[in-house]
């Protein structure tokens, strides 16, 4: 879920309120990770510790996307994200904490898009992540272990809430499968030069809850996918943007796939095939064929809203289309993120994120 690294920039730009030096396109992602820890292959995840923040790494996120069906028969998408960005490695209590947090929440309907964002500094209780019980929050938004906790991991039974000026939601998430390490046991390589991150997912949530939209409250059910990732220098200097897919197929299998575009016009694709039982298989670089199709004019840019994905060794040959072409997240650094539907050899639902389209 490389795409989210991009929020490192969002944060940098938010701090631009203070006139922080202008980020130079996406190239800034390739900045040196001086003083920060770097991911190394072969490390094993340790829970619940790894559910919490890794303040020696520059960036980290807790990222949930949900494909929902309303009692009114309408398809909805929802997103809850907490990003951590460190100005310096390590943490301190109080205002001198170098940790900055950003929250992003969105709801997509077939014809509308709602989004909100939050910013906070670490060290003063406005935002943070605790483990045992697990709780991630920024302002009143929260993704937290529900009481009473059932059997399983700290992430197995969560409650997720967020509100914006004109929308809000409260969902209960219950995992029906295991946590899935991405890449090589959680070491996810992001470029041919070897940039990488730690990355695991919980893609097996069932969701029940309530969506509040202008003029109505809708009971919804569906599926959700949680991504956890942290790193310090995630992108190669010449990578300009990405297209990222998380797909729940009706067969019970799941696919995480991404394409990183570079300035030379080429790309780097990778991903993980997840069996219905939660067994991950890493897709070797550039095996997954990711082809953009028709574009839509979104916020003045041409953004591909139809895609073709092919992975011959799994018999995958699907068309991916956006449920709402205009799923634009109009935050300080805007991007496209919304629910999608697949047709072809595997039918299903999922989420697509696209950045770097100008």
């Amino acid at each position, binding site marked *: 879920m490389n795409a989210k690294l991009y929020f490192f920039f969002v944060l940098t730009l938010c701090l631009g309120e*203070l*006139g922080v030096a202008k980020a130079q396109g996406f190239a800034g992602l390739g900045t040196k990770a001086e003083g920060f820890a770097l991911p190394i292959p072969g490390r094993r995840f340790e829970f619940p510790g790894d559910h919490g923040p890794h303040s020696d790494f520059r960036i980290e996120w807790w990222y949930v996307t949900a494909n929902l069906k309303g009692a009114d028969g309408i398809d909805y998408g929802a997103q809850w994200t907490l990003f951590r960005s460190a100005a310096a490695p390590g943490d301190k209590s109080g*205002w*001198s904490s170098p940790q900055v947090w950003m929250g992003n929440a969105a709801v997509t309907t077939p014809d509308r898009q709602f989004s909100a964002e939050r910013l906070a500094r670490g060290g003063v209780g406005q935002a943070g992540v605790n483990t045992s019980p697990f709780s991630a929050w920024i302002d009143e938004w929260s993704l937290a272990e529900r009481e009473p906790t059932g059997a399983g991991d700290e992430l197995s039974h969560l409650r997720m809430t967020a509100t914006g*000026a004109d929308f809000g939601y409260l969902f209960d998430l219950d995992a029906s499968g295991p946590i899935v390490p991405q890449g090589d046991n959680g070491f996810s390589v992001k470029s041919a030069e070897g940039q990488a991150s730690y990355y695991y997912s919980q893609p097996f949530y069932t969701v029940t809850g309530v969506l509040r939209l202008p003029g109505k409250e809708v009971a919804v059910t569906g599926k959700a996918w949680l991504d956890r990732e942290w790193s310090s220098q995630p992108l190669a200097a010449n990578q300009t943007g990405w297209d990222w897919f998380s797909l729940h197929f009706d067969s019970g299998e799941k696919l995480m796939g991404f394409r990183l575009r570079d300035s030379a016009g080429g790309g780097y694709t990778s991903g993980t095939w997840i069996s219905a039982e939660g067994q991950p298989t890493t897709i070797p670089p550039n095996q997954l064929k990711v082809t953009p199709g028709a574009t839509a004019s979104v916020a003045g840019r041409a953004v591909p809203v139809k895609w073709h994905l092919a992975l011959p060794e799994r018999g995958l040959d699907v068309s991916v289309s956006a449920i709402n072409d205009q799923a634009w997240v109009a935050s300080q650094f805007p991007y496209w993120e919304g629910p999608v539907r697949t047709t072809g050899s595997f039918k299903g639902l999922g989420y697509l994120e696209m950045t770097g389209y100008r």
Partner: protein
Amino acid sequence: MISSGLGALLSHWRRRPLQLAMLLLGLSLATALWSGVQAINAEARASYDRAAAMLGQDRFDQLVPTSGEEVSQETFARLSRAGWKVSPIVEGEWRVGTSRIHLIGVDPVTLPSGATAAALGVTSDLLAFITPPGLLYVSSETAERLKGNSTPPLKVSPGMLPSTAIADIGIAQGLLDKPMLVSRFVVSPDQPMGRPELSVVAPELSLKKPDVQGDLSRLTDSFHLNLTAFGFLAFAVGLFIVYSTIGLAFEQRRPTFRTLRSLGIPATTLMGLLLIELLVFAVFSGLMGVALGYILASFLLPGVAATLSSLYGASVDGALTFRSGWVLSGLAIAVAGTLLSAAQSLLQISRMPLLAPAQPRAWARASERLILVQSAAALVLLVAAAALSEWGSGLVMGFAVLACLLLGAALLLPGVLSGFLALMSRTSTRPVALWFWADTRQQIPGLALALMALLIALSANVGVGTMVSSFRSTFTGWLDQRLASELYLTARTDEEGDRLARWLRPRVEAVLPVWNAEGDIDGQPGQVFGVVDHRTYRDKWPLLEAVPNAWDRIVSGDAALVNEQLFRRGHHSLGDMITLPRGWKVPIVGVYSDYGNPTGQAIVAIDALTHHYPNVSRLRFGVRVDPQKVSALRREVVDTFGLPPQNVVDQANLKRRSLEVFEQTFSVTAALNVLTLCVAGVALFASMTTLSGMRLPQLAPVWAMGLTRRRLAELEFWRTMLLVLVTLVLAIPVGIALAWVLLAVVNVEAFGWRLPLRLFPADWLRLGGLAILAALVSVVVPLRRLSKVTPATLLKVFADER
């Protein structure tokens, strides 16, 4: 036809360049004073707006503590976890060396965009901003002042106000010694749906709506109203010049008008031409005036800025910015003033019969009736002034009283002069004397306007002079009482303060702590001081009013003295309960005068102070010691404790500084006062010179009867002196009344203190000298002309058509 008509009209000014100069000068001066004052006000207001905009108080809702100065930082987490999108701010006075800086701590991450205006423009590193020692945003002026002190690294930002600094909230909490405290919250304009009520989440806070006006501009309103009133007064005096010059020029051109009309120029065209002429003059002098006003304002502004900062703690840039607003308003008022002054004359021309006698009359010959009407109007105004001062209240009312008083006195002047002259002529028997009185009386209408202007200027001068002098003498006496300690010390830390006090006690007569807590008193920012029980206070503290045994009650710890400002503002009386910071309620047992301080202040026993405000900083001390030993002690303190010299101030030094602040406060008033007098002098000069040219018909017969030109000139001289002296004598009681209004009404409203009226006859003598000098200057030209007039010219009078 039109162009030759215009040529004919303008030729008048070519023949009388002095008159033209007077017209332009009068209008320029009036506009200059007006627009100068406006420029100063505009500059100050812009500074206040920036102060308000700096933290978005003018646009965003704020959450402020319901009582006390700060709330715990924990409230911030509570608010945000409940869905209130707010940004915390801590602020306070930060002492660096000898400077006081208004330090504002912000959280750049949550601050709504637009809340910091242009204040923070150039930083490059959030990390440096939030990580100790942090960064401090200041104006270049403040950076210069802070040089050499130990401060966090400074960043100069052009948008910053003087004496203000912005830092990260965490850094500011440390510098201000307000750990884990928040002064207020800025409420973001976009709030999520369904958040709970504030009273549920944080009952210790209350919501404050955006304050478009800003606290500072409210506080300083009275000061600016003062300035504006002065500007307007000067303008009004200037208009007297314009009115008289225009009236004279129109009268003198009556033959020209008649000729032009006879030659076929329609009345409307003639009016139009005259209007164009006036507008050209108005725009020209308006521009001149605005330019002069700009120069004037840039001279006065530093003084005003210093006054505002010492009086109200308001930061105003010492440099003037060119603003189109006051330029346009200056031009507009010049044009409006010209048209107003010319309205009567234009009306007369439009009604003038084609073949009306073309003899120039120095203004319409004022009849006894006109003088009676004027006097009646004057009496009505004076009665109104008395009534207003008796039953009215408020600052605007105070100025209304001033206006009625001045205008009434001015209108009464011709009546009084005329009565005086009638009386004099009745006591005279000799023919020359009889002629002198009668001729003088006949001249009153012509000189009335100039004399009225002079009266207003002189009265204003006497009034303001009396006020300032009364204030100065009261203030000096008060300072002697108030600054009773021989030496004032400021420690750098509380711990050093304690050591200092311990060290001093065996060496001196008494160590008097000067400790104070800040917070809301009666809902407005103020200070609470603590005093020890010492005869210095009992003997010397300047109490205006107190219950018996007031000091004993103070010492008991359960009573407070309040300063006059606080007492008057709250309409308190002795024994009333007053709410000190953190909701501590005590009875008022006495009132003391506290000049030069805009805020409320209370005094309690020192033990009560430290009990209720345990965090009070214990840095400052007054030391009672034999005056002989002061300098030795001072040296010893500096040597032993290494205190910087500016932290050890002796009484004389402090007094001198206080007096400097005082002098600054009134320097602008004094400058405007002198300028107003100058304008009045010019008005007199203008009237005398123009009038003298028309006096030949009156003088020729007397000359023919045997009075020499020299004797005539002498008589003219004495006439002027006499009129000016009578005006001066009349101006003194008016001025005293004015001073009374200023001291008892305006000052109480504007500053919150009332002062005793004291009279300074020596000042009047000086003013009389000045007035006579002005009169001398204004008669010199006409007298020279008169003494040089040839007999042929005088004879010609009899040959002329009249």
